[in-house]
């Protein structure tokens, strides 16, 4: 699928935003300033961005505990996300949700999720609305190899097929389900299994933005033709542990290092677009610098932002309190 220079620069910017956001959180976590559990998405940027660059605010996504990348790619404000992760009153969810529960319904972002397999059934419900509107909008669920083994996901896939919904199930295989290898937990070929549910599968190289972007174009064509749901499966890796602080004893020491050097989504993107003379390296450098400064500023403002008070704890349980 042909993309304009503007599109390409925007995609790079989004991927860089996610990478810097996550790398910075990795550092800030060590300082002890950030509370709770943080699951970082670095290494998988090409998937979130390759998919969400096709979507608008009318489309919906559901995400996972490893949700920052999906949130940014879907248009959540990274500054407000940073404030949320710092637990601030002016964070995207008023400091109530934190890293694992970032959501922005106006952007079609139906929530990161603390429950593995919690998101796909919700996205099926959103797809029902897309179908009723008949405007070509779609719902996408992101999930990992772990969620691919949850009964909730099996039910969601079948339901979407039965109702012929405009729904795309994305499985991002980063090699691990928490602390266990995906090869152990997924007992059969995931592509074949997904097809068994009646879902056509579009496969992509999860380190390659252009591969994911093309697969998503194909998936959308299928869904928008009224042929019902489908799946997109892409392999990548996560650069960090299951959560921040995870000693990662299950991983060979050089696994990430090797992948970073050879497969990194941003490096491959840069190489591709500069070698094809689509974009000058200097333009990408300028984006890098701009985002580095922006993230710095987000952290600075998050540190200064007000803490939530008791009124935030005691509201929004119901419409009237």
């Amino acid at each position: 699928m042909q993309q304009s220079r503007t599109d390409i620069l925007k995609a790079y910017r989004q991927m860089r935003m996610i990478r810097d956001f996550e790398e910075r959180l990795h550092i800030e976590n060590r300082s002890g300033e950030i509370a709770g559990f943080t699951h970082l998405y670095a290494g998988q940027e090409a998937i979130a961005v390759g998919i969400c660059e096709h979507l608008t605010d009318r489309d919906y996504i559901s995400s996972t505990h490893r949700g920052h990348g999906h949130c940014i790619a879907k248009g959540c404000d990274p500054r407000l996300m940073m404030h949320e992760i710092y637990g601030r009153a002016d964070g995207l969810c008023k400091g109530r949700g934190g890293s694992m529960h970032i959501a922005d319904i106006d952007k079609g972002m139906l929530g990161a999720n603390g429950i593995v397999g919690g998101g796909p059934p919700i996205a099926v419900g959103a797809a029902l609305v897309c179908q009723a509107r008949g405007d070509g909008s779609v719902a996408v669920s992101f999930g990992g190899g772990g969620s691919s083994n949850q009964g909730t996901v099996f039910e969601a896939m079948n339901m979407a097929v039965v109702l012929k919904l405009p729904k795309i199930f994305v499985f991002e295989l980063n090699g691990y389900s928490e602390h266990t290898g995906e090869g152990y937990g997924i007992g059969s070929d995931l592509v074949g299994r997904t097809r068994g549910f009646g879902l056509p599968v579009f496969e992509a190289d999860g380190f390659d933005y252009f591969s994911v972007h093309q697969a998503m174009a194909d998936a959308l064509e299928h869904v928008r033709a009224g042929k019902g749901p489908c799946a997109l499966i892409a392999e990548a890796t996560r650069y960090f542990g299951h959560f921040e602080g995870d000693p990662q004893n299950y991983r060979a020491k050089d696994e990430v290092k090797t992948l970073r050097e050879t497969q990194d989504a941003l490096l491959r993107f840069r190489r591709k677009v500069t070698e094809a003379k689509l974009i000058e390296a200097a333009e990408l450098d300028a984006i890098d610098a701009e985002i580095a400064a922006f993230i710095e500023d987000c952290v600075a403002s998050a540190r200064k932002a007000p803490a939530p008070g008791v009124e935030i704890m005691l509201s929004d349980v119901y419409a009237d309190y």
Partner: protein
Amino acid sequence: MTVKTMREALNEALFQEMRRDPGVIVIGEDVSGGAGGSSGSRDAAGGIFGVTKGLMGEFGDKRVIDTPISESAIIGLANGAALAGMRPVAELMFADFVGVAMDQIYNQMAKFRYMFGGKAKAPIVVRMSMGAGMNAAAQHSQTIYSMLSAVPGLKVVVPSNPADAKGMLAAAIRDDDPVIFLEHKALYSSKGEVPDGEYVAPLHGASLVQSGKDATVVTLGRMVSFAAKAAAKLAGDGITVDLIDLRSTSPIDEEMILESLSLTGRLVVVDESNPVCSIASEIAAIAAEKGFASLRAPVVRVTAPHTPVPFARELERMYVPGPDRIEAAIRKAVKGE
């Protein structure tokens, strides 16, 4: 006796019971960890909080079973294995994940014995980490004993210290009914004297942590240490309390509560859970129904608010009943302030 953490005490109980009975198996996500990983380690995690560390090395993967992330199937596996004669110890990494597996717990294991005419038994332990204190937000911080204690057929226990953690886990494994075994995640690193060698403690029955004359304070889990802090401060002002560690929320030791109440005349219940239809309200009901004549003041409940567990440090601190709130509540009960 040796000073150990609650994590070590639980681990010791698992080794003890697995050595004692070959029918005891451990099932869960990452209970050993590392299967299929690139490092080749088969004990890479030992459970997310390290409680099952080392079991794989001694007992192997037939008895220490790493599962996919499939909570319904994990509990189902335990249910079927129990009906067929084993004593499974299933782990739900976080108590909140009970939602995914609820049918297997609520409609299945809890009811086997009764529905099947008393001919079936389900000697299952479901270990779960619970509680706030790590800013893990609304889906990783709940204390779910109130909800599960309402289910006939389930036993529910909440150890508050390492010795009980060891002795009660051993007792839970030997028990012939399903036991929900709730470990407060903020207590895993807490230390205490733990009996060496084989040790089994009563599974149920409350424990009188300290005795006093002015009020009965009933609490459990992490709140026991918070209530003890409050009691220590009040002692300076001449107010003393019976501090009761509930230990088990199903069944509840009514006898100890009522006996203490008959001596103090005042009841304060401290519960980290949400207040509605809770253990705190259950104990208040017991006092109203069976201890009414002893009550010299209204029962005071100190609980979390009726909200999900919030994320931010400041919010979680307000959410969890702390020593200051407990102290104020006891003063209120005693002095009517």
